[in-house]
């Protein structure tokens, strides 16, 4: 295999692997920018994945499946928002319970929603899926071709990313969102509805996370298996920090994370003498390295990393 073809193949799988991560990461960035930490991602992704696959399996409609995943993700996030914003509960505890609840319920549904012929198990069933749609001409270009041989959900990412960045940094609504995450008191004084903002972006984050889960069960690894996400919800939480709460850098992180796995498996398959354990460690090692460099660089340039009010409940009466 030529070097070009190899790089092209790595790039293709990297983008596919990164898609679900990008959806969830952008969602969580928006949630955290409003000052709400949602550790329920793993559960929400699993719920999105199982409901999307079940819907596609029974109705045959992939778009309806996406809609269901978005609604389910949004509902779980709304529960989190209710507990954290209205009830002012501890965000870490609430997020963790949503992960536990979501993963458990997803497994449960996977064992009940299937056809009678398969003991009501959804596992192992084959349903409709999003297949890559090569874009004529563009997909035959060297290297860049990899970008144009993807499924529709990845194409949507190309549109979503600049929009997510632009909205956050260049619009008034984005500014309000950031203000709520930095200093809810000030935002409140300026006439921004803190409660409404936090609800809105927590739910939006949940919807995108549900979509990320749906990409796994409908496109990347079509079908339902218990624990399909394999801890990707937690990787996303690391990615958000990695991206320093900037949707633009989230792409970089997601692609890097997806890409290193693809590269290390190819090195192994090619029979390199580097120990597999070391190669398997690479993605995590890189994350730590980038974190160190980023933090250092952020400190130098006196920029702010995490939203200052992240994880804190807002009470109007408190000073």
């Amino acid at each position, binding site marked *: 295999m030529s070097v070009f073809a190899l790089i092209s193949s790595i790039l293709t799988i990297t983008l596919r692997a990164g898609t679900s991560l990008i959806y969830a990461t952008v969602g969580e960035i928006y949630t955290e920018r409003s000052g709400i930490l949602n550790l329920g991602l793993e559960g929400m992704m699993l719920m999105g994945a199982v409901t999307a696959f079940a819907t596609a399996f029974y109705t045959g409609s992939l778009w309806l499946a996406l809609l269901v995943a978005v609604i389910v993700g949004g509902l779980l996030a709304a529960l989190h928002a209710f507990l954290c914003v209205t009830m002012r509960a501890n965000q870490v505890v609430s997020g963790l319970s949503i992960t536990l609840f979501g993963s458990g*319920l997803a497994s449960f549904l996977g064992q009940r929603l299937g056809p009678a012929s398969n003991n009501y198990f959804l596992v192992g069933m084959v349903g409709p899926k999003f297949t890559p749609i090569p874009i004529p001409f563009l997909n035959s270009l060297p290297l860049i071709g990899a970008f144009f041989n993807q499924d529709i959900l990845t194409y949507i990412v190309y549109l979503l990313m600049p929009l997510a960045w632009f909205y956050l940094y260049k619009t008034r609504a984005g500014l309000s969102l950031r203000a709520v995450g930095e200093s809810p008191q000030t935002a409140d004084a300026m006439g921004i509805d803190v409660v409404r903002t936090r609800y809105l972006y927590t739910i939006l984050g949940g919807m995108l996370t549900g979509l990320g889960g749906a990409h796994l069960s409908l496109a990347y690894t079509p079908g339902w298996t218990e624990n399909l996400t394999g801890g990707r919800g937690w990787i996303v939480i690391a990615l958000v920090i990695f991206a320093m709460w900037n949707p633009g850098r989230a792409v970089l992180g997601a692609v890097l994370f997806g890409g290193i796995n693809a590269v290390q498996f190819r090195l192994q398959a*090619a029979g390199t003498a580097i120990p597999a354990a070391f190669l398997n460690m690479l993605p995590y090692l890189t994350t730590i390295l980038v974190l160190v460099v980023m933090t250092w660089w952020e400190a130098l340039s006196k920029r702010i990393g995490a939203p200052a009010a992240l994880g804190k409940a807002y009470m109007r009466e408190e000073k």
Partner: protein
Amino acid sequence: MKRYVWMTLSLVLIAAMLLSGCAKKTTTGGTPEDPYKVAFIYIGPPGDLGWTYEHDRGRKALEAEFGDRIETKYIENVPEGPDAARVIREFAQQGYDMVFATSFGYMDPMVEVAQEFPDVKFEHCSGYKTADNLATYFGRMYQARYLAGIVAGRMTKNNIIGYVAAFAIPEVVRGIDAFTLGVRSVNPEAQVYVVWTNTWFDPVIEREAAVALLDEGADIITQHQDTTEPQKAAQERGMLSIGYDSDMRAFVGDTVLTSPMWNWGPYYIQTVGAAMDGTWATHQYWGPMEDGVTGLAEYSPKVPQEVRDEVEAARQKIYDGNDVFCGPIKDQDGQERVAAGQCMTDADMLALDWFVEGVVGTISE
């Protein structure tokens, strides 16, 4: 204050929902006399279509055999370590007569609880520690792997076979070596490329590893993992595969040529039967293919009759006592490790840490 009440309430509710999903009572029971109570501890869900699925199939075979004379129960997704001891102890306290634990990491908790309950019989799958009331059981999967290797060796066109493997432990290395010996017994040109994933269960990683092997030119993919994802990846590229654990052809399609698979039913029926008769004694069972504990799943129509005949001949040789790891066997560097006319002992096989000739890959220290 009020919000803490709310929080606690919702947590308790969530916990209750989760727990009620975990434990399932699965028999109707209801005999006049006391049914024999058997419990199973599973590492994964019965819906994994692999390792736990097969143990659960064994449990169901047990129920079908003994009907209402026994009562079985299982708990799924039990983490290895101290938590397992708690689950096992609970079963013993509830008056269960026999407890099966089906993963290697339950070994020490099992030993601990077995000492506390001398009247309860314990059986541990894949471990090596025993006691008067604690037996071990496992199957010689490598024999079925060898047969699957013959199928792969005959069906490959590129002479490259990809092997997605979980961890570099003797059990997995033994499988890779036996498979490769099978491949090379019919096709000395073919090579087996190994990629380690360092996980038993991660559909996404397993798929990526398989795709990397396919890119490297592999036209048959096999695996030592817990999901069907490598098989699906091969199918999407129009390539063939060989499954593992369960009959993966049923879940993926005819591109899965066959699967070396587990079949615990006969063993469970035999050992529980012995326990009910009072003839049970502690043992270390490493069941050969002849007992039906391991074997090949039904072939895909893509496997020609000549290949099937060749496999049958090899199977007969193994039944006749000519086991897989009998010499001459060379390692990756071409050095002879087992001389002609000699066979590895069980102890050697259980500690196997080198690749045979024909494997492309490394075992990290």
